[in-house]
């Protein structure tokens, strides 16, 4: 097990390097650089870019005249030493901008992941054990609705309804009073009050599909001979399902765990943009649009790192749950 983790860890290094090179090139593929984008932004937003004086001097200052490979090595050289460079748009060191956004992204992603599994597994079990019952039909209907609704649409509709009916503006992770205040119990409560909406919105799609998978798997397993044997032995139904059948049926759900991470991370990005949450998503989108290369590159690297770690954890969890997995 130890060598397995070590091997996977070592393998992550070339993976991340490859990701960094490809993403750094792709970020800069469009014509023009950050300053051209900035001129265009000012013109689009305010009809005028005269506030941006001395463009050529800034270009030199940011090293945008250097060739691409040189910029890459400057950035990568700093990156491994923990210096991620400077964001052009925010005019701040990248590390000042990203850490609490990464933290909020993790909170929302992990929250939705937990929500997805906690909601999907019992519902799936219930659905399978009450197959073709009216409640199963109802849950099936709900899960299809949940799967086919895009998360951003759910978020937008929630915003409109919450405002129209209750007069509550749904956005951000804190109310105006706690925004920027130091951490306190009140602020934590405020965060939790705001957090459940994005967590559920991001988790809706995943919950619906996981529920269907859980139901299908369990139905498969329930038809197998060992379940009949268990029943014949006179075990109570709750033990038959809970201890024997679910134990087998849950394995695919854990291998899906690794795969559902990317969709949850990107799902949370879109929902964050709609709901105005302080996560990685909105600044990643802006930095890509603006060719704010060091910020975009660093964020993409961090997200990739999260994915690599998440995948590794999922694999370990699977190996732990299913003893048939070998490490070779």
């Amino acid at each position, binding site marked *: 097990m130890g060598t397995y983790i070590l091997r996977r860890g070592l393998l992550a290094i070339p993976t991340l390097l490859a990701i960094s090179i490809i993403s750094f090139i792709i970020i800069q593929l469009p014509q*023009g650089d950050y300053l*051209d984008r900035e*001129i265009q932004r000012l013109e689009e937003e305010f*009809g*005028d870019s005269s506030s941006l*004086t001395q463009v050529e001097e*800034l270009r030199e200052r940011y090293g945008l005249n250097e060739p691409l490979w040189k910029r890459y090595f400057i950035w990568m050289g700093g990156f491994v030493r923990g210096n991620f460079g400077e964001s052009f748009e*925010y005019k701040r060191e990248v590390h000042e*901008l990203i850490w609490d956004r990464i933290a909020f992204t993790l909170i929302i992603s992990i929250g939705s992941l937990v929500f997805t599994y906690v909601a999907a597994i019992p519902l799936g079990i219930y659905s399978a054990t009450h197959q073709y019952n009216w409640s199963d039909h109802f849950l099936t209907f709900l899960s299809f609705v949940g799967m086919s609704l895009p998360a951003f649409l759910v978020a937008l509709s929630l915003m409109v309804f919450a405002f129209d009916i209750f007069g509550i503006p749904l956005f951000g992770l804190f109310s*105006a009073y706690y925004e920027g205040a130091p951490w306190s119990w009140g602020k934590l409560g405020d965060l939790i009050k705001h957090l459940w909406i994005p967590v559920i919105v991001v988790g809706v799609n995943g919950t619906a599909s996981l529920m269907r998978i859980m139901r299908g798997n369990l139905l498969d397993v329930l038809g197998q001979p060992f379940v009949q044997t268990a029943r014949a032995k006179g075990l109570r139904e709750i033990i038959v399902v809970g201890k024997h059948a679910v134990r087998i049926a849950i394995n695919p759900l854990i291998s899906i765990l690794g795969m559902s991470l990317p969709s949850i991370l990107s799902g949370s990005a879109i929902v964050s943009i709609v709901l105005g949450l302080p996560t990685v998503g909105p600044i990643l989108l802006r930095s890509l649009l603006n060719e704010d290369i060091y910020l975009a590159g660093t964020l993409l690297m961090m997200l990739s790192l999260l994915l690599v770690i998440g995948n590794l954890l999922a694999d370990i969890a699977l190996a732990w749950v299913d003893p048939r997995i070998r490490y070779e």
Partner: protein
Amino acid sequence: MKRVKQILSMLCLLLLTGCAENRVEELTDYPNGLEAKEAPILAKRVTEGKLPPVEQRLPQNPLVAKTDFDGYEAPGPYGGTWHRFHTHPELGTWKMTAGYAPLIRWKFDASGLEPGLAESWEFNEDGSMLTLHLRKGVKWSDGHPYTSESFAFYYELCQDERHKYGAPVWCKVDGKPMAVETPDDYTLVMKFAGPNWLVPLWLATGFWWCNQYNIPKHYMNQFHPDYNPEYTDFIEFERQDRPYQNPRRPTLWPWRITKYEKGGFRVQLERNPYYYVVDELGRQLPYIDRVKTSLVPEPQVRVLKILAGEIDCQYRGMELRDLALYLKGEKKGGYQVRQWKSTAGAQPAILINWTAPEPALRALIREQRFRKALAYGIDRVKCNEIAWRGLLQPQAATVSQEGWHFADADGQKLFEEWKRADADFDIDKGNALLDDMGLTRRDKDGYRLRPDGKRIEMLMDVPSSNLNSQENDIGLIVQEGWEQLGLRTMLYTPPGAELSLRRTLGKFTISMHGEAEMDLFTYPDWVFPTLPKYWHPKVGKWYETGGEKGEPPTGPLKRLLDLYDAIKREPDEKQRHQYVRDAVRIHIDEGPFHLGSAARSPALLVVANHFHNVPNDGILGPWAIVTPATSYPEQCWIDEEKQ
């Protein structure tokens, strides 16, 4: 043990009473209401000995804020917090509101200049020397005196090769830079190589120049390589020299930054205790104690914040398409929507590249009849109805009608003529002009052929704006009209920054750009081809580089540039305005050089019901005249009981 307990409980009691006392000590002990000459929070610090008294903090002859606008109610009480948002980490919208402390100011109605940090200024006879007399006793927000040293230091930096920013264009006459002299702390002399009558305007224009030339030498020295051997370059210097970001850098703004968090997502400002402006009663401004502003890049979240009543007063950052929603939410959100003037003359203007890359097209474009035909092919009423829901006015492309060049009756008459010039939608007239040019041969699809036998095909660049779709709608309407003229028109949406690159490098045939300009003396490029922009990129390049690059002007463009050169040499302001009118005459008679669609949209403002002294009307558009900062927003006040 018992003793220890006793002592502990005594201590606790002391601490508690101490806390309680702190809470009891209210600011109401200090002069309040209209008799207070300074804010209670400052008066408190004066009695604590942390701040000199207000008389010593104000200049001998403080600047008195102007109140001669509709919407001014009364002098207000001190206190409160102003909540708002900004749209970009550099706080552009805030700088335009309260980041404007120039030597000379624009008047609020943009009809001319008025004193700022300088009490007065005068030119010598031939306009080659400008003398400014600074207000005595103005202080930076840390209490250090503001003197002529600041500008001298700035100009030194401009000339320093190691500092990346060169001298601004207005310092130079015929390519020769000016010399700056400071005979004493309150006199600033600029000597130019020739007449440079427009310099006072440049000193007043935009928030960007005054924030460059007002630089606190006493603070910035510590990052300067000549004064601190720790630094070898100006990177740290430049990083510290950002008044909107660095709380330690002294400023002249009414409110100084106290917190700049998470890349500008949360910014807090507090009143500058040394602010040099007072109200009519001689009370120090600003009235409002604190400002909290947060970065909201997503337009839909801005809408929600306003509807929720979280915003006290907001200039800029609202879209016209949300007007109905804002009006619907007025009551619930406890605010009022006001509509100022954007003064835009074309939203957007259709640019016809005078120096189009394709020679056959260029020859056609230089023919006035061709350009007139294109103008007749645009259904401006439809542009207004479809893209702007009928909220604008259809007209030819112009600069801002409220500009001071057109202030009198003659000017307005000329401007009306300009607005109407070739501004009708008339396909027959357009076709007749094209036939008259001899472009009568058509191909089997009905498109007209060029003299060389190829089909006339024009590519029109349309921005892929994620902010609004007006340009796309208008692009389609223009295309529809021009196709009826037998001219093949194709829309092209360049990715990323390619759109603006194609514009500045002159690689386009037809493109788009919103048009508004209040002062053509400092930003002449919509009318005079002085910069590589808009409808004249390559001729502008020629003028900008002094003839080194680009293409030399011919015909009307040559005359336009001659007129601009005359403006720069002309001592009489009235005559300068006349030259602008002469140039407009060239645009009417020999144009159009760029085409209009719809224009003059309202600019939205949100003002909470408890927020006072906001003008009812004004100009909120072009940046150069820095509105609303010229209306002295530091005299806005909050009725805290109703907040």
